[in-house]
């Protein structure tokens, strides 16, 4: 045994001086595509100096499933189920954005009851998206499990509503050009009212439990600050833009659907940091509850689909259209070019979470690697939409 020790001693080694050797050297780490906190198959190449992020390059495409190419080879209506799978948390708003664009392209009117149903479902989608986002974000922060369980408990209630209406929990495929697919009966509306009325209780509980939490405040305030100028230039939309104090909500600006009929406020942040982005979601949920209460009270019986719209052999006239809505993650747009055929000539999705990632590097520079996950969580991405 002693011989082994001697042999080891004999090996010449460079002198080890702890702390000084790695100084100034960057360590490159590839985070993802399989990582518990990258919300799917997102990948970042991060250059670290110690624990501090000095460079960050996102790598996309691990869920690039050719939505646009398939959309150009399918009929207009055939793309509707595919839009469900874009942002798979919010199939209702994806449906609406696509239906809105085709309605612009072909000049289709939507009956009143369908507009109400669309708003009700879009706002319910916003509730469940934001609730799940807060759950995931807190999960990333280390509140392992509990907030996510609470959020998913509420989400399941809303998914039950979706399921009883459309037949599917997540992939609703509910909207049609010029209306909706099936009508909601009175029992459904009564259940929706009940869930909406009880939702603020969950919000109170959740906010009390989490948003005033010292650890949450410590890990989010002044982390990942985004200036309003950069946010506008980088095309940031949705709650992330409004967290910087920029008052821009497509629901108010475009006034699509029947949104101008409802009274609701747009929450705005002051600092543009992670805490503001988190709060923005909590406040938006309260406003969504307000919209839902008004819509559920005002909805009147009537037709749910425009009878003039052809279902078979649907061919919009030659032209192009860009339609956009305020999806829970930001501005979701569809750009369609029609050459008069049954398929769109060009089918393009403007994905909010993909464009919101433009500033990810700017947000993370100078923060520790542990903050990267919190910042990424607050951007609210879904890979189905980022890579399409």
């Amino acid at each position, binding site marked *: 045994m002693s011989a082994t020790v001697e042999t080891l001693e004999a090996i010449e080694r460079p002198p080890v001086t702890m702390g000084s050797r790695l100084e100034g050297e960057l360590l490159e780490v590839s985070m993802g595509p399989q990582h518990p906190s990258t919300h799917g198959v997102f990948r970042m190449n991060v250059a670290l100096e110690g624990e501090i992020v000095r460079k960050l390059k996102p790598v996309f*495409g691990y869920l690039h499933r*050719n939505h646009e*190419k*398939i959309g150009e080879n399918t009929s207009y209506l055939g793309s509707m189920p595919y839009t469900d799978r874009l942002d*798979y948390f919010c199939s209702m708003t994806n449906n609406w954005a696509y239906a809105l664009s085709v309605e612009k392209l072909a000049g289709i009117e939507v009956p009143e009851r369908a507009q109400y149903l669309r708003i009700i479902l879009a706002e319910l989608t916003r509730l469940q998206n934001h609730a799940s986002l807060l759950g995931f974000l807190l999960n990333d922060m280390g509140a392992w499990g509990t907030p996510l369980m609470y959020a*998913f408990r509420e989400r399941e209630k809303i998914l039950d509503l979706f399921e009883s209406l459309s037949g599917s929990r997540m*992939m609703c495929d509910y909207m049609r050009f010029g209306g909706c697919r099936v009508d909601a009966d009175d029992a459904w509306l009564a259940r929706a009212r009940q869930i909406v009325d009880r939702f603020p209780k969950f919000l109170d509980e959740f906010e009390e439990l989490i948003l005033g939490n010292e650890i949450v405040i410590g890990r989010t305030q002044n982390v990942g600050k985004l200036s309003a100028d950069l946010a506008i230039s980088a095309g940031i939309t949705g709650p992330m833009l409004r967290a910087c104090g920029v008052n821009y909500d497509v629901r108010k600006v475009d006034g699509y659907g029947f949104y101008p009929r409802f009274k609701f406020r747009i929450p705005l942040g002051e600092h543009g940091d992670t805490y503001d982005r988190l709060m923005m979601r909590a406040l938006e949920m309260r406003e969504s509850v307000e919209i839902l209460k008004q819509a559920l009270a005002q909805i009147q019986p009537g037709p749910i689909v425009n009878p003039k719209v052809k279902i078979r052999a649907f061919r919009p006239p030659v032209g192009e259209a860009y339609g956009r809505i305020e999806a829970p993650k930001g501005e979701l747009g569809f750009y369609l070019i029609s050459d008069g055929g049954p398929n769109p000539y060009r089918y393009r999705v403007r994905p909010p979470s993909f464009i919101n990632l433009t500033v990810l590097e700017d947000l993370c520079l100078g923060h520790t690697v542990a903050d990267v996950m919190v910042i990424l969580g607050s951007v609210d991405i879904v890979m189905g939409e980022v890579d399409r």
Partner: protein
Amino acid sequence: MSEGQMDEALRRELQRQGVWVTSMQELYNWGRKNSIWPLQFGLACCAIEMIATAASRYDIARFGGEIFRPSPRQADLMIVAGTVTKKMAPQIVRLYNQMADPKYVISMGACAISGGPFKQGYNVLKGIDRYIPVDVYIPGCPPRPEALLHAFMELQRKIDEQKLTGADKAAHLDPQQPSEFPVPAFGRHDLEPPANADVFQPPKLERV
């Protein structure tokens, strides 16, 4: 319990008297099947249903599968939950290779089985079984959490039936069976090779 060693009626009678007779194989498989640790790894939409399965309402913990491990080295089960793109396929094979034997694969949803609705995509792999062997397939787009629980129970049944000895013993006990599979490379137009012929033998549709 190995076949032909004890009469089933006698065994039940003994159990009633408080004597529990078992075999090594039964005990071993019972332990393994009730603590399957899945790899925490979601690809697409199905991953959200996988999370819902792990969350409060469906609660996969009832079946001993709630410990989702972020590291493949600690996981027994890979749930391929979602569309496998060609860009992602090498990573999945690599993750599978990094898992320790015995290891199992559930192919969750239409996309992981065959490409599903995205089959016509240029970047979509037409089924993860082109590169790694799959134990249980779940149809659906996405499958409901109940379907995932059903697949989980099917997998438990499969584990329960695995033999420890003999010619038809479990694959992980057979040194002839490979535990790792070649990782495909990114080619100029497609993955190279487009499928692993040792694993993927599709049925041939013969037509005039």
